[in-house]
């Protein structure tokens, strides 16, 4: 048994320094496309047409990116005919479209907040990224963020997935079982807009059609640091990106 102890000591501290400092290692985020100006309107429109889900909208010569729709298919990035500018960051959390602002949780939750994660039809990637937050490289416990299995003890409801039909009632019950104050964090393109599944008889096309979403984290999947940024934004330790642009 002492093997574990010495091995751990020998490895040293490997946890990221975020949120005190940005994480320098590459590979922590797939990055995102930025709004890019093109030479002509036509080129911008051709650039926008590259996106299979319509996340890029041509506004004159500017190819504007609606990050909430982006499914990270990389068609506008690698070997694209009209590549967009790309940035490898991860602070992507926004308020939902049309929302006036975000009411932060009371101050007592800044150092200790409990999160319940509900898989509402998720593909597995977003859920897996959330799970990575518990590993030593990210270690959310040091920030006072804990994952709890019961909604009775939870403050934040983290939803992944486009809300499949069979999960509609359990999700609703989970939300109602949480005591107030409570907030909802929708994580992933599916939870925001339905992703590639969209709206159908089997899927509700995003959480906002069922429950009031407080903050959204776009990406498919958003990397763990983006989800961490979202959690920190919910408790008020980080600011929300008003509109995720360049």
């Amino acid at each position, binding site marked *: 048994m002492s093997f574990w102890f010495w091995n751990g000591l020998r490895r040293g501290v490997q946890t990221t320094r975020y949120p005190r400092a940005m994480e320098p290692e590459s590979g922590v985020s797939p990055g995102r496309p930025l709004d890019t100006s093109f030479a002509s309107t036509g080129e911008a429109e051709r650039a926008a047409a590259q996106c299979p889900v319509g996340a890029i909208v041509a506004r004159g010569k500017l190819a504007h990116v609606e990050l909430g729709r982006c499914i990270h298919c990389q068609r506008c990035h690698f070997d694209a005919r009209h590549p967009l500018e790309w940035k490898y960051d991860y602070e992507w959390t926004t308020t939902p479209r049309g929302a006036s602002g975000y009411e932060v949780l009371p101050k007592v939750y800044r150092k200790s907040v409990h999160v319940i994660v509900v898989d509402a039809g998720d593909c597995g990637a977003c859920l897996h990224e959330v799970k990575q937050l518990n590993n030593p490289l990210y270690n959310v416990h040091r920030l006072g963020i804990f994952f709890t299995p*019961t*909604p*009775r003890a939870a403050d934040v409801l983290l939803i992944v997935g486009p809300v499949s039909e069979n999960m509609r*009632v*359990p*999700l609703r*019950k*989970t939300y*109602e*079982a949480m*005591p*107030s104050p409570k907030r909802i964090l929708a994580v992933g393109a599916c939870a925001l807009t339905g992703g590639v599944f969209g709206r159908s008889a089997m899927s509700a096309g995003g959480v906002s059609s069922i429950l009031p979403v407080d903050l959204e984290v776009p990406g498919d999947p958003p990397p763990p640091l983006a989800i961490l940024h979202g959690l920190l934004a919910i408790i008020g330790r980080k600011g929300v990106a008003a509109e995720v642009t360049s």
Partner: protein
Amino acid sequence: MVEIIRGSLLLFFILCGCGIVLSAATRGKAPLRVVAAFGTLCAVLMMLASALALVSGQTPELRLWNLEGFGSLSLSLDTLSAIFLFISGLVYLPASLFVAHLLGKAFHGRYPARRFGVLHFALMGSVILILTAHDAYSFLISWECMSILCYFLVNYEQGQTMDTRAGYIMLAMSEAGFLSIVLAFLIAGRMALDFTFPALAAGASHLSQGGVWGVFLLGFLGFGVKAGLLPVNFWLPRSYTAAPSAFVPVLAGVTLNLGFYGILRLNVELVPSHGCGPGVFALVTGSITALVGILYATTEDDMKTMLAHSSIENAGIIVAGIGASMVFRALGFAVPAAIALTAALYHVVNHSVYKTLLFQGAGEIEAVTGTRQMDRLGGLARFVPGLSVVFLVGCLSISAVPPFNGFVSEWLTLQSLLRSAVLTGPVVKIVFALCGAMLALTAALAVTCFVKTYAMSFLGIKRGPWNLRSAGRYGKVHFSSVYLAVACLLLGILPTFVVPALNRAVEPITGASAAASLVPPFFTATESNQQLPSAFLHDFHDLGAQTGSKIVPGRGLVLLVRGTEQNPVVFAMSPSYSIVALAILFFLTWFVVTRSTRKRRVSRNELWAGGIPRLLPEMSYTATGFSNPVRVVFQAIFRPNIVEDTRQTVSVHFRTAIHRRRDETHLVDRLFLHPIGDSVVWFAKFLARMHHGRLNAYVSYVLGFLLLMLLLFRLS
């Protein structure tokens, strides 16, 4: 004073007779009213007579008849009888009212209430006769009457599908026990002038060692039948289950005590043993009985059977206390003997009260829902809240939770076993230690058992298909249950008044005063009074044992276990002070919590079950599931037979059903009843070989017997 007592006893018998006559004469529901009214009056008289007898210390005597060649039949009420008489009165009061309450609605018309009324009063009379008998003949005659009356009452509902064999087994065992008791009295009376109790006591000192052992074994096992001791108690669960719910409270609260009375009278008072052997035998038997009883109670699903096994457990604890007392007395330690005997008597009182309460509760549950299976109950607290509160009081009492009465008597019993530190022989000490451990395990299992009972019946979701029958009448809690619950509480918080009362019976038997060592006179002793060492008094004044001396009369409110000079106080406790402290704490907590959370919003939501649409009754714990760990851990004792364990499948991989049924044969049945029965049958078959029908052989039998008789006559 004596006149009053005698007068009240006479009045009691007159009222009993009136009760019998009136019950027989009236029809319809009237006999039940007679039972309620006259029964209550008789119970009050019983309590009055016995209380006066205890307080005054005088023993009135009643001479009845003089039988030719046998001696005189007489009754007398000494302190030991007075205690048991008081307990009987205490139990008969609510029991009579309960009879009217339960039989009035549920079973009216099916069985004549007259019969019940007559038997009820007859049994009451015979019980009093047993308790006040002053010679062996009246004792034995009334014992036999009581046995037969019990049999009639147990088989009162003989038209039911219930096993009438249960009553028959009870009768058979009672008769066997009776035979044993008769033999015991015969042996005891060999050296005595006649068969009155004083004469027997005088003659006992001339009995040989073997005689004393004979009286003890025969008497112990004979009375043990009624008291519910291993190995002769296999009739008890069956009879308690089969008996009508109106009668079982009396069975458990009154007739069970007769067994203890018999043991105390014959084996402790009249014919005491000189060595510690009989005491150790009683102690060990009691402890094993207690453990086996509670094991079967914990894993039982039927509420009445469970309570019956629990009665066996409590009987074991009582007899263990009696046995410890016998050992201490035989080895010359009078004070520990007194403490142990006080503990046993206290437990008799407590057990009668809370067991009656629990059986009444079980009867009401059966009347309300139609079922006794705890697997099928659940959620009753919402429908019958009053009953749930009193039943909870009963469960807490029997689990020995302060501030109720069970706590005090269990504590005293275990403390008296701990006093074995004063003993010198190593074997006896080891036996005491082992028995103490068994009783501790029993106490823990009792908590499990009653947590299961209360929680599975009253809390949770409704699991069975029953609907509430006549909830209106049974929804409100009956006076008798409240009376018993209050008695449980009072007996628990005023032990310092109960112990001196019990002491009046204990002191003549053991020769030492339990009250002097358990309940020191903190209130009545001043600094200068030499009853207690002044340093000791000083310590306790500092601790506040004087508090309340102006309000509450009596000796004090603290129970002590005194030790040697170096360690004067081994342990002290006071349920009276603690209930006041508890009440203050509860009030303070309530006050603080309600004040500080006034601004909070409370939202009520449905139960969280993982997000499934509805929590169904199939998804909640059953009583069997709750007690399964006990069943598995003690598998060696239970040895369940797997009756059915099949897996039904359609095409190998698809399971449609898994059928499992386990049956258990009771330990006693397995070890005693079946082997004895089998050997008797074997012997009978062996002898049956003589019945072969050949006439020549029969003639030769006659000839052979004649020759044998002639030879014997010649030789003698």
